[in-house]
Each structure stands twice: as C-alpha cells, then as structure tokens.
C-alpha cells in the first residue's frame, strides 16, 4: 500500500477535472476505425482462355529476347570501340541488387563475432531508441572483427526506417559518434565498416557520408579539440546561444532534453562507449581515465546558463568546475 501523501486528495480531484469531450471521442473513434487494417474486396477474375495465355507468353518471351539482344550488342560495341580496355563481361557480375561500385561484405564468412561489441550496440539501441529484444533483432544483425582488425557492424535495412524519425536534430553525426565510441573502444579494432544488409556503401549513402571506412588514426587528429579547464574558464559565457556554443566548443558529443543540455567529452579523440542516456556524471569513467573530462552546458530559453566541467585532478579525485550567473566554483566530487 502506498504511503499517503498530503496531495493525494488533490491529485484525485485533478484527475476528475480532466475530461475527454464526448463529441470528440466519437469523432476520433470513427476516424480510428478507418485506419485499422482492412481486407481488400477480392474481385473474382474470369478464367483466361488458353489462346490468350499462349499469346501473352509469346509476347513476354519476345520482350526478354529483345532486351538480351540489346545488351549483347551494346557489349559488342563497347568491346569494338575500346579494344585495349578489359571487356565489361570479364568483370565479376555484381549482385542484381547492388551497383557495381558498392563495397559489399560476405558477412557470414567474415571474421569472428565480437560478442562484447555486439552487446554494446544492442544496449545502445535499447537505451537510445527504446527498442525491445525483438525490435533489435529486426534491425541489427551482428558485429564481427577479422585478424587484420577490420570490424563490420551489420544492420538490416529496416534499421533505416526504425531510426529515421527519431534520430533527433544531431542526426547522423550523433549516431556515428556514438557507434564509433563503442567500436573503437576495443583495441583490436583498427578499421570499421558500417553495413546495411552487408553493403557499406548503402550505409554511407543513407547518412550522406564519404564512402570510406573509419580508421582509428582519424581520432588522433581530433585531440587538438580537447576541451581543458582553462579553455572553459576563458570561453564559457552566460547567455551564449546554441549556435554560439557550437562555434566556441564544437558539436556536442550528445545532448539531453529536460532541460536541453549539450555534453562534451573526450570520446571525440579517445573512443569509449558508455551509457549516455542518464544525466548522471560519469565519475567512475573519469576517475579510471576512460574519459578525460565531461562538460555539461545547460540551456534555458535558448541561452547557456550553466557550465559544469568534470575532470580528474592531480590528487586522483574527480573535480567539478562550474560557471553560472552567480560566478565560478571549483569543488571536489565524490560521485553520484
């Protein structure tokens, strides 16, 4: 039995004050019923006479033959015009589903399954997109790594439809940053391809990225964008707009709603996958140096009102440096 609270009677009264207007309910029900899956009316077809079947078959067959001849003659023309070029017919015949220049993987026979990475991706899909087990198995296939440190993270095409509407304003960038954080937190991964049904090019086309794999080396170049406490002291101003914050600090690692908060961390140059769903500071991760820092920038009415920078001090403890309208403050923190 719940403990009684002084406001319980008021909650009950509030509940009784809110009503769904009867006329609106009826209208809604009528509309809802039109949206329920309906059977199409089946029209009984008359039986097709045999001679019609024969003529149809001949026409279809003739069309196919015509198309084939057309293709052959095109090939012959190409060969005769460019006698020194390899014949197109000598190249491997691509899958009928993929353009020739797409990067395709034979997922089944590639490397070995990386169970920890696979579980990281499952956990990410569960917390970020609120997917259940069966939904995840519909959209995500596997994560594998081979002996050369090449990782493939294979999603099913339905992943595109599942996340397109819920990607948020940060969109493709946030998706990739988060996935890369997980993938490259494993030292055995040097190169990563993200795939849609085995097709890396399809993934890059979907997100409109350059059609190239991600290599570990690229992270090193982002270390120059590391945010230090000194940088925060100098540049964190109350009243900056979203755009001004991005200009000063770059694109956030991820964002939280309620209130809108941009979070920056060292995964930009030092990949590390961790649960970003909570608004709790990653004290343990900062203390054991998986993360170098976290910077939280809270917004109110579109303006930055509060900065909190967490880092590991020389004493081995996590310190928090805050800037607000009341001034700045540095305190040692013991955790959540």
């Amino acid at each position, binding site marked *: 039995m719940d403990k009684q609270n002084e406001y319980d009677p008021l909650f009950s009264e*509030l509940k009784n004050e809110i009503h769904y207007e009867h006329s609106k309910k009826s209208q809604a029900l009528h509309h809802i019923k039109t949206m329920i*899956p309906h059977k199409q009316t089946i029209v009984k077809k008359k039986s097709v006479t045999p001679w019609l079947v024969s003529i149809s078959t001949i026409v279809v067959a003739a069309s196919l033959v015509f198309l084939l001849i057309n293709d052959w003659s095109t090939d012959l023309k190409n060969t005769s015009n460019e006698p020194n070029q390899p014949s197109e017919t000598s190249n491997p015949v691509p899958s009928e589903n993929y353009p020739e220049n797409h990067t395709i993987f034979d997922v089944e026979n590639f490397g070995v399954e990386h169970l920890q990475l696979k579980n990281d991706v499952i956990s990410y899909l569960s917390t970020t997109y*609120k997917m259940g087990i069966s939904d995840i198995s519909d959209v995500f296939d596997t994560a594998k790594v081979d002996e050369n440190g090449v990782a493939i993270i294979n999603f099913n095409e339905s992943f595109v439809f599942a996340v397109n509407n819920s990607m948020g304003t940060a969109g493709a960038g946030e998706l990739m940053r988060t996935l890369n954080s997980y993938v490259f937190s494993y030292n055995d991964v040097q190169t990563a391809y993200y795939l849609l049904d085995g097709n890396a090019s399809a993934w890059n086309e979907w997100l409109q990225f350059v059609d190239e794999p991600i290599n570990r080396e690229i992270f090193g170049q982002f270390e120059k964008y590391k945010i230090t406490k000194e940088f925060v002291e100098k540049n964190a101003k109350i009243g900056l707009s979203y755009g001004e914050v991005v200009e000063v600090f770059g694109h956030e690692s991820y964002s939280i709603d309620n209130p809108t908060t941009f979070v920056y961390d060292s995964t930009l140059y030092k990949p590390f996958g961790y649960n970003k769903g909570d608004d709790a500071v990653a004290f343990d991760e900062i203390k054991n140096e998986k993360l170098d820092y976290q910077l939280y920038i809270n917004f109110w009415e579109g303006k930055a009102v509060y900065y909190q920078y967490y880092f590991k001090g020389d004493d081995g403890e996590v310190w928090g440096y805050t800037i607000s309208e009341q001034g700045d403050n540095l305190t040692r923190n013991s955790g959540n």
Partner: protein
Amino acid sequence: MVALRKNLHYTDSFYKNIRLIFKKDQEDYMEIEKDIDDIFEQYAEFVYRYIFLLVRNKEIAEDLTQETFIKVFQHVHQFNHQSNLNTWIIKIAKNTTYDYFRKIKWTALFTNNNIQTDSIITPSTEEKVMKKCEIETLYIALRQLKRDYQEVLILRKINEFSTRDTALILGWSENKVKTKLARALKKLSVEMTKQEEGFYGQTKRV
C-alpha cells in the same frame, strides 16, 4: 486519410489479435466492432488525461489520443500479454507524445509563449471556488517540474499505476520509480508553496 471503401472487413489477423485480447473465439464481425468500441471506451479517457497533463493543450491532446489508438489497433499483433493492456496502451501514448515533443521547439513546453496551455478550472458555485483554485495551483505547480518528475507523478498519483507498471511504461527500474517519486513529491511541495506565495511573476522552471 484512408477513404472508406464499401463492404470491407478487417483483415483476418486483426480479427484474430483483437479476439486474443479478450480471449474469445468468436469471429463475428459485429462482435469485433463492439470489442474495438470497448477498448476505446475503456482507455480513451485514461490516455487523454495522461497526454493532456503533459502537453497541456486540449486540441493537441485530442489529436495525440486519436493517434495513439490508431497505433494501438494497427499494432495490436504486438501485444504479447506480458503487461496489462492499459500499460501497453499508455506506453504507446507516451511514445506518441514524445514524438510530438521532438517536433516542436522544446522551449514551448515550459512557457506559455508559443502554445496555448489550457486551464482546467471550470465554472463553479462560489463554495467550490477555493477547491478549484487549489487544483489549479497543483496543475500549475506540476508543470514547473522537470519532465521525469511530471511523468512519475502523472502515472503514479493521478493515473494510479502501480510502481511495477510505471517502471514498465517509463523503461525504468522499480527502485528508480520510487526514488523519482519521492524526489518529485518534495519538489512539488516546494513548487506548491511558491505558487501559493505568489513567488513567480511569470512561469519559470526550477
């Protein structure tokens, strides 16, 4: 909008899944209509109340309630009886509402500037005015809280879901529900006091 076509019936799988909800074998067309009506009648008020307390606008709450039930009936095959039907339906309502939130500027959620928020005070006799004012104060105080706190209070205290069902709807652990509820009630108490003392010259979040 799908145009109504003559002499249509629902698909076989829809029949089957609706029947499963009520654990009935009959496949009579008229019974199905009654089942749809019953589900809607039983849960529409519930869903509307939940959504209204989050969006605080009558028209938007009506639209989102309709959208929720469209999804309920379109995805009835996904109801696996692992939770109560009302829990499942409210979860769809929550996701529908959050999809709506993502489409609008977030600042509109917590100010009166962009979207009209509706009062809940209805005309009343003079004796009831004090009570109505208290309820309005609670309503205003509730919307000063951050969304997590609003959610847990709306589900646990107003819609009276159990801790377990609230955890299922919000995707939290039961402990988290209890902790958040305790904190939400404390925060609510502070907000109620501020409202009563006329602390705010304008709507402002803590």
